[in-house]
């Protein structure tokens, strides 16, 4: 198995100094300015509290502990006073830090929530032509991981970065204030540390990426193996499979060991740096103490500050890589948000009062991909109230015809009208309410059957009961344990494909569409459900209906049959008429083994289980 499943982003790095990007990220925090301001104030408070402690200790040493000219009692009471101030500061620091963390979390999450919502509704509004070209994984990653990456930057970076930088600056200021020369010496470590950090961060990122991608390879391998286990066992391929797995797991081990080596080298290095710094302070500061240019308290404070100094540096190393991936994520999110949809409601939509449901396609041509015409200069007129069956091999353009009517795609040429109105002049939502669909794919909500039927149509329970009654679908509901209140979907009752179509039928009727589209199920349906579905469909006589037919029984009932092939209509008329023409339709029926069985006196097509009575041609079919 060569599964490289698990969606991985292509490696790309966004420049750190992309000012436009930063500005746009900053714009996302609109409405949280005050909260951000408070966070900054809190950060200042936290830094002041943290930095005053070593200074207080220094004051304690210099003014009291080593002040030989004061009495022991005076010295001790001074020490206690300093202790009191320190205690207050420690407590302050604690509370302020807590508040800051929670506040930032709230701001970060709220901002991300807003971005995620914006992105989600944007994606739902985008053209199918665009969406179908995107792997599902990519779109989901935008909504989840990319947003998460940006969030990490917001909370743990933007302001922690601010905290750390503030602290570094604060330490430098205090040190310069205490002893400028020694401070200058210590600041020499800053560029060194920076170089080390940036090198490490980029190396570590690479290693982590390698580990993650290998792990996702292993995971998808296991997933595929588990779902295909019966096949693996029936073909006795266990040992072969295991050797494949062993290879993957060995590679994973290698990659983790590489990462361990990197960390083993880097982690102690920062430690080394801090000890070297301390020894230099001791050496240089010691000389100054001997020369009486520095007090012992200051020397001890210097050493304490040095420890505080290296802590944020180490954190910066981690933050650096977070910022990198966050910037890349931000760029991807923004580029998705910048994708514009082509299919929109017109600025001023035609007011629609009553729709009769007459449809015309006027020399319509359409291709999903350039030059591969799926609908080819097609003309078709359907009168209001007519029932039309479309037949033809897979890939002949049946489903596309419907998608164009719903305006999921825009034809490259020609116009489509409903009751004489160009569908482009109608409000999109109105159009899709006029055209009700019963597709093979049924959207199931994790809710009761009733809620699934009603959805957002605002139908009352009584109306639903009425629809079920009229459509002869009562038995379907009655055989569920709790009738209309049975929960379906995830964690509820699983519906068979026939039941799903019944649901879709009831759902469509709730919306009372002027035009009804039915894509007949190709999958096996048990005969009871099937006859229920057939009867239900027979009850629709009062509106225009277009049926993509897979069953001969349906086809024969239609007012008109349209035979499609390679995006064109090759024949149309009713069943008898078309059979007598002895053309493509008659051939399709014959190919359905109809005639052959006649000779033997055994008429059958086995259509209960046959998904496609017409010859299957290889094609990409409907892209969704």
């Amino acid at each position, binding site marked *: *198995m060569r599964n490289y499943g698990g969606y991985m982003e292509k490696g790309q790095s966004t420049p750190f100094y992309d000012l436009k990007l930063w500005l746009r990220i900053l714009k996302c925090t609109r409405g949280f300015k005050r909260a951000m301001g408070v966070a900054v104030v809190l950060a200042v408070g936290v830094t002041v509290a*943290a930095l005053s402690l070593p200074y*207080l200790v220094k004051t304690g040493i210099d003014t009291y502990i080593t002040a030989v000219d004061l009495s*022991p009692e005076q010295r*001790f009471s001074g*020490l206690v006073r300093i202790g009191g101030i320190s205690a207050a500061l*420690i407590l302050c620091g604690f509370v302020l830090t807590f508040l800051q963390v*929670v506040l930032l*979390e709230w701001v970060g*999450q*709220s901002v991300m929530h807003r971005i*995620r*919502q914006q992105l*989600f509704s944007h994606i*739902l509004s985008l053209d199918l032509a665009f*969406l179908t070209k995107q792997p599902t994984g990519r*779109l989901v990653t935008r909504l989840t991981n990319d947003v998460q990456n940006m969030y990490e930057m917001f909370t743990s970076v933007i302001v922690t970065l601010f905290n750390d930088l503030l602290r570094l600056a604060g330490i430098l200021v205090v040190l310069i204030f205490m002893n400028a020369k020694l401070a200058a010496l210590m600041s020499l470590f800053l560029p060194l540390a920076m170089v080390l950090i940036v090198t490490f961060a980029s190396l570590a990122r690479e290693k982590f990426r390698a580990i993650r991608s290998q792990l996702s390879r*292993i995971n998808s391998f*296991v997933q*595929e*193996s*588990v779902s*295909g286990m*019966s096949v693996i*066992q*029936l*073909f006795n*391929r*266990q040992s*072969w499979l*295991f050797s494949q797995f062993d290879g993957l797991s060995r590679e994973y081990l290698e990659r983790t060991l590489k990462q361990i080596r990197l*960390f*083993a080298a880097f982690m*102690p290095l920062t*430690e080394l740096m801090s*000890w070297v710094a301390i*020894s230099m302070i*001791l050496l240089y500061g*010691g000389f100054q103490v*001997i020369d009486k240019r520095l007090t012992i308290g200051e*020397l*001890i404070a210097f050493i304490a500050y040095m420890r505080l100094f290296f802590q944020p540096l180490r954190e910066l190393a981690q933050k650096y890589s977070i910022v990198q991936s966050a910037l890349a994520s931000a760029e991807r999110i923004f580029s998705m948000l910048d994708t514009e949809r082509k299919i929109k409601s017109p600025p001023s939509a035609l007011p629609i009062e009553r729709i009769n449901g007459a449809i015309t396609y006027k020399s319509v041509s359409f291709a999903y991909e350039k030059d591969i015409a799926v609908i080819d200069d097609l003309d078709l007129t359907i009168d209001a109230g007519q029932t039309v069956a479309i037949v033809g091999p897979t890939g002949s353009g049946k489903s596309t015809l419907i998608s164009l009517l719903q305006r999921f795609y825009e034809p490259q040429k020609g116009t489509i009208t409903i009751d004489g109105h160009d569908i482009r002049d109608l409000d999109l*939502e109105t159009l*899709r309410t006029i055209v009700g669909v019963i*597709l093979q*794919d049924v959207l199931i909500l994790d809710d009761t059957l009733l809620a699934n039927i009603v*959805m*957002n149509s605002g139908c009352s329970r009584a109306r639903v009961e009425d629809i079920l009654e009229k459509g002869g679908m009562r038995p379907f509901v009655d055989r569920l344990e709790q009738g209309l209140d049975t929960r379906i979907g995830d964690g509820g009752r699983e519906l068979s494909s026939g039941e799903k179509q019944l649901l879709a039928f009831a759902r469509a009727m709730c919306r009372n569409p002027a035009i009804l589209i039915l894509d007949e199920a190709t999958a096996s349906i048990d005969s009871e459900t099937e006859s229920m579905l057939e009867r239900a469909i027979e009850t629709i006589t009062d509106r225009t209906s277009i049926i993509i037919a897979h069953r*001969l029984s349906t086809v024969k009932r239609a007012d008109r049959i349209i035979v499609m092939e390679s995006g064109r209509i090759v024949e149309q008329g009713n069943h008898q008429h078309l*059979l007598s023409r002895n053309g493509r339709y008659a051939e399709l029926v014959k*190919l359905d083994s*109809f005639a052959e*069985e*006649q000779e033997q006196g055994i*008429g*059958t097509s086995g*259509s*209960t*289980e046959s998904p496609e009575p017409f010859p299957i041609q290889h094609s990409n*079919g409907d892209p969704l």
Partner: protein
Amino acid sequence: MNSRDPQNSTGEERASAGGVRLRTLWLRLLSEQFKQHRTRLLFGFVALISVDFLQLFIPLIVKQAIDSLTAGTGTMVHLLHISAMIVGIAGTVVVLRYVWRRLLIGFSRYLERSLRNQIFSHILAMDQYFFSRRTTGDIMAHGSNDLAAVQMACGMGMVAAVDAIVLSLAAVGFMIHIHPTLTLYALLPLPLLAVATRILSARLHHRFNHVQEQFSLLTEFARSAVVSVKLIKAYTFEQHQIDRFDRMGETYIHANIRVAMINGLLFPVSSLIGNCGLLIILVFGGRLVIDGAITLGDFAAFTTYLQMLIWPMMAVGWVANLTQRGITALRRIDDLITAEPILVDAPANPLLLPGTGKFRAENLTFSYPGSTIKQLDHVSFAVDSGIIGITGATGSGKTTLCKLLLRLYPVDDGSLFFGDLDVNRLSVDQIRSQISYVSQEPVLFSDTVSANIGFGADDVSLETIKAAAEDADIHQEILDFNNGYDTVIGERGITLSGGQRQRIALARALVAERPILVIDDGLSAVDTSTENRIIEALRKRFENKTVFIVSNRIKLLSMTDRILILETGRLMADAPHETLLRTNSFYQSIHRKQMQEAGTNA
């Protein structure tokens, strides 16, 4: 490792309620790896402990410098000497740290790999019961989260535990050496830190899990919305989806803030308590310096030791949680790895089965475990060779019969025979190597077409693959794919129709070249004329061998040599098509129905 591994035979131990004892877990899952890597572990720990002691000497050296400076006896040479010593020790520490990280953390990865392989190889030996009781997600979780937990516990967890114990004991020793009473005072707040970390990080873990759950709900919702975007648009259902996503997002924010509340406490608490110790040293230690009981150097060393103690104290809480999680994960892994297939494999001395397409059932009766409904009820028939059709309504037992043939479930003695031998006297592998199988919704792997077809046997030549594809009537369509036989199937490659999938699965079964072929409704998505050609090809290929086809299509059944009809587990008929048309009312009724479907008035 598989179910026959001797270590698994200690199953009685785990049967005693309340989970597995730690010793058993250790013996079964870990001890071998620890033994195998004992040299690595030994050197690793020596390096780790050396680092701890070396680190503790540095404050002592600094103390000397400060003392000499306070006393005014410090000279440049002395300071130089001290600085050089610090750098020297620090350098040694760096090297030793590198060594232990590589050795000890590396060990945890070796352990992880060994467990991962054990799990996978065990899964490969499991039967359908096992997979019906566990979702793929469960098994995946063992393979990722649980392994990660064990790896953390045996890597960083073990290191931190040893490090914390050695470092804290030694640091406390050094402090007591300087001044016992001050040590007592300074250490007073530290146990609080351990307790606080333990409580907080346990709660953090809990709340963090909740965040993860919310995140996967969010992901799943986004995924299903993206997948069904066409339907959502068709139903003008966008706003509803946006609102739901919004509510889930709100819940997610809430869960995150709950985590932040703990996070906001966890780290400040450590600095709060560490600083409290510092405060105590400042006041009481300062007093001692004033009284001349300790030197200023002692005072400085004391503060350094205290800071060194903060990490081990935090580690105690952290390690406790890691260990706990590690043990829970080990239990789950152990659960998985000791699960045994219900289908007991070979009898003590399995008989040798000659290659044969012959089998028979005698009063075969079967219910699924935990159910009293008889899926098969005294079914008897015998097959020598030829194409046999099976039909019957949904739930009549057709698929169950196929599964029993494939030995996916156990049967009673004396009820199922292959080539006159009772299946219970034969090994499962032997029987399975006689049968190839095609299901209605076949599983294909994300790989090339040729790899998928060639999956049926070892080292299959391309000629064999093509011949099988031709017989399955898919060859021409494969050639029409962009890369022919090298076209990749699945998410990253082309999407196949149901009929194409079924025919590729059929080709895969043909490649295996086994005397019995079971097609469980595996041609349902193939159109009738193709079906015709396939049956013709099968007739040639399986001369003197057996093809067993489950179907409800009269057309297909009419091409078979004879047809078994099942009704609620009983064999109602066993006769050729023509006979059944005359005699069997069930057969007549489906025949009539399918005839009407086809239309009669042409």
